[in-house]
């Protein structure tokens, strides 16, 4: 049986471009630029200086504080600079520039056999693991909630159009994912583990089902619908529990971890490999040869695009087309949390020409959080911040369903973001 949350939308999934292409290893460029902040939380502190020699896996940035993550080199070579560059979000942050010596010498952590809870937790911290689904929340923090957890949900929904990285991961490494899951389960002490996969990925469902045979992990088919992979929607679909509007999944005893994160946990524990490669989909009509790539962190997007070739394109997006960031140029680099790079051509991209709201109610009917986006938009335009608060913009998960369906092209998601910001500034 397939499960469903309320509302949401059905965008064309465009996954056929890359769904059947196995992961392919892209060789590293001559220079990599490794950002010291690839996660939510405090940036890591540089631990190397110019001239130092590093190997792939050498710790080059140290977590500062609990909510922060270690950063490792992705190639072997020499540190040639520490410089500020813009990341995909347009923020200037420190990058460690490493000249690749082409030897790919590796420095691994000691592999762990039968790790204890503490071992697993420490390894996630040491290996710099963050949520690979895009949220980039440090995994060692996530698996240490201050509330008891009964259910661990593994997110294999991958509901954003175009992206097939998690899908390929499930086809190619189901056993490893299951092993990674069992470690996370041990740390959390969860009784139940469910892998949620949308029903448009029957092969992934079969592969995972075969891999979990003999364990107490179950695979649950989910209805294909955007945003099925949204944390709150996924939890509702799997457990029928509703995460409180201002709360976190742990408040209802659930933790959600992405499938690729589970794989990275496996690698860190079993092989001692820190998190410095990224499994990503590079797609869109602007890419000549769409592919699923294994890329070393710190590779500029420009090199990725050169590697695959490009056609005319008008927009470059890091992440999915519904929630991803559009970037002004291809200078930013691949970071741990980038599940995809999309180059869209004119036919795929949406031209936005806002016209007056016609009050059709489509946005409200699409919002999975049951908000009324048009009202926030209208009130924010009139600067009525206190009134907009009544429409709960703080609950908006920025999934984009409202703007997707709006025939008047209202900038509804931006309005929600602005309302959140202004409410924070002015009402507190």
């Amino acid at each position, binding site marked *: 049986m397939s499960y469903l949350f*309320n509302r949401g939308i059905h*965008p064309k999934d465009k996954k056929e471009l890359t769904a059947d292409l196995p992961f392919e290893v892209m060789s590293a460029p001559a220079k990599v630029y490794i950002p010291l902040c690839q996660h939510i939380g405090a940036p890591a502190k540089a631990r190397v200086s110019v001239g130092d020699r590093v190997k792939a896996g050498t710790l080059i940035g140290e977590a500062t504080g609990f909510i922060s993550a270690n950063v490792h080199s992705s190639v072997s070579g020499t540190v040639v600079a520490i410089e500020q560059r813009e990341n995909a979000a347009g923020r200037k942050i420190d990058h460690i520039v490493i000249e690749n010596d082409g030897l790919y010498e590796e420095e691994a952590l000691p592999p762990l056999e039968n790790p204890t809870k503490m071992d697993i937790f420490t390894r996630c911290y040491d290996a710099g693991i963050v949520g690979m689904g895009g949220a980039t929340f440090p995994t060692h923090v996530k698996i240490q909630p201050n509330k008891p957890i009964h259910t661990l949900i593994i997110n294999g929904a991958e509901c954003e159009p175009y992206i097939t990285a998690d899908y390929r991961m499930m086809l190619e490494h189901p056993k490893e994912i299951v092993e990674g899951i069992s470690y996370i389960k041990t740390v959390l002490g969860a009784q139940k583990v469910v892998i949620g996969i949308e029903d448009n990925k029957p092969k992934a469902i079969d592969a995972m089902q075969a891999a979990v045979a003999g364990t107490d992990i179950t695979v649950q088919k989910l209805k294909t619908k955007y945003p099925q992979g949204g944390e*709150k929607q996924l939890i*509702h679909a799997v457990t029928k529990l*509703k*995460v*409180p*509007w*201002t*709360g976190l999944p742990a408040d209802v005893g659930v933790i959600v971890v992405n499938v690729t994160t589970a794989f990275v946990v496996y690698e860190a524990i079993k092989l001692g490999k820190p998190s410095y490669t990224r499994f990503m989909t590079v797609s869109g009509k602007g890419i000549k040869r769409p592919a699923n790539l294994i890329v070393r962190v710190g590779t500029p997007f420009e090199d990725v695009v050169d590697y695959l070739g490009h056609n005319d*394109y*008008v*927009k*470059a*997006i890091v992440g999915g*087309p*519904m*929630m*991803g*960031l*559009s*970037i*002004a*140029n291809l200078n930013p680099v691949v970071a741990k949390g980038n599940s995809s790079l999309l180059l*869209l051509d004119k036919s795929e*991209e*949406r031209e*936005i020409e806002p*016209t*007056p*709201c*016609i*009050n*059709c*109610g489509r946005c*409200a*009917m699409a919002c*999975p*959080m*049951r*908000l*009324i986006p*048009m*009202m926030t938009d209208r009130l924010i335009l009139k600067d009525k911040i206190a009134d907009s608060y*009544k*429409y*709960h913009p703080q*609950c908006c998960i*920025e999934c*984009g369903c409202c*703007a*997707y*369906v*709006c*025939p*008047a*092209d209202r*900038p509804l*998601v*931006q309005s929600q973001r602005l309302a959140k910001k202004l409410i924070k500034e002015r009402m507190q």
Partner: protein
Amino acid sequence: MKLQVSSSPHIGTKLTTQKIMGHVCIALLFPTIAGTVMFGIYSFVVVLVAAASAVLAEFLYNKITRQPLTVNDLSALVTGMILGLNLPPTAPLFVPIVGSFFAIMIVKMLFGGIGRNFANPAATARLFLVLSWTGFMTNYAAPVDYSQGFWKAFVSGFTKEYVTSATPLTALKGASGAVPESINLLDMFLGRIGGSIGEVCAVAIILGFIYLMIFKIIDWKLPVVYIAASAVAALVFYKNGWLFILPTLLSGGLLFAAVYMLTDYSTSPNTTIGRIIFAAGAGFLTVLFRRYSGMVGGVSFAIVLMNLTVPLLDRIIPKPFGYVKPKKEAARG
């Protein structure tokens, strides 16, 4: 290369306001064609004049207020067609012109244009016309009789050779306990009755409804709840009420309003619960006015009255997903 940078989402529906209004226009062609067949070519001219005047009115308003042109969103065309279809097939041509200018300039544009007006422009304009030119607005013709020769019948509106006729609504007025003999349900279903141009043929309206549903233009809950509420009200307000359910639903502009007027985006509530209350209220009021007021019809008045409650209904804000009642905050020290 210059790349576009914008906020997510980066993809979206191909549907635009113009396309939505275009679909509504197409759906309005069903009752327009049916009305033309029933009452001859003159009634088509009435609708055409109403539609053209509405577009012209909006164009002039844009020009006078020096605002960007909004006529190409086609919403004025929709308003004009709806108003035209709400007129008797005998209306002199100044009636659609005055009505459309009133609907667009006063009811729609003065209140901020598309999406902002609080009362349905066509319904309000119809009420205004009824009050100003009651005679013209209640001068209903019987469907033309093609047996006297096709052309003669088809142009009879121009030659003023139509036969005036009472509408089923007039016949129903005052009736209770037993349905008057002049009421023939099959004729009402097919449109072989007197009435406004667009409202007579139930079949055409149902086809329009199906069209709008296929293209997901309207929320089915509005017409369905409205019709259900009208049926219940008929059951309650008339003696032997069950006999009156079908005559109530098929007479006057009830079905037409259910599909094309109640579903107007600007003047219906945003939320499901609001829409249900709105449609149920309109259905109840429609039958109430028909049964107990001095007016013959009640549809337009009921709609406009319920339009006025929309700002109130829109204050019902649904609880977001996962809402929990905020606990009383401990007194701050």
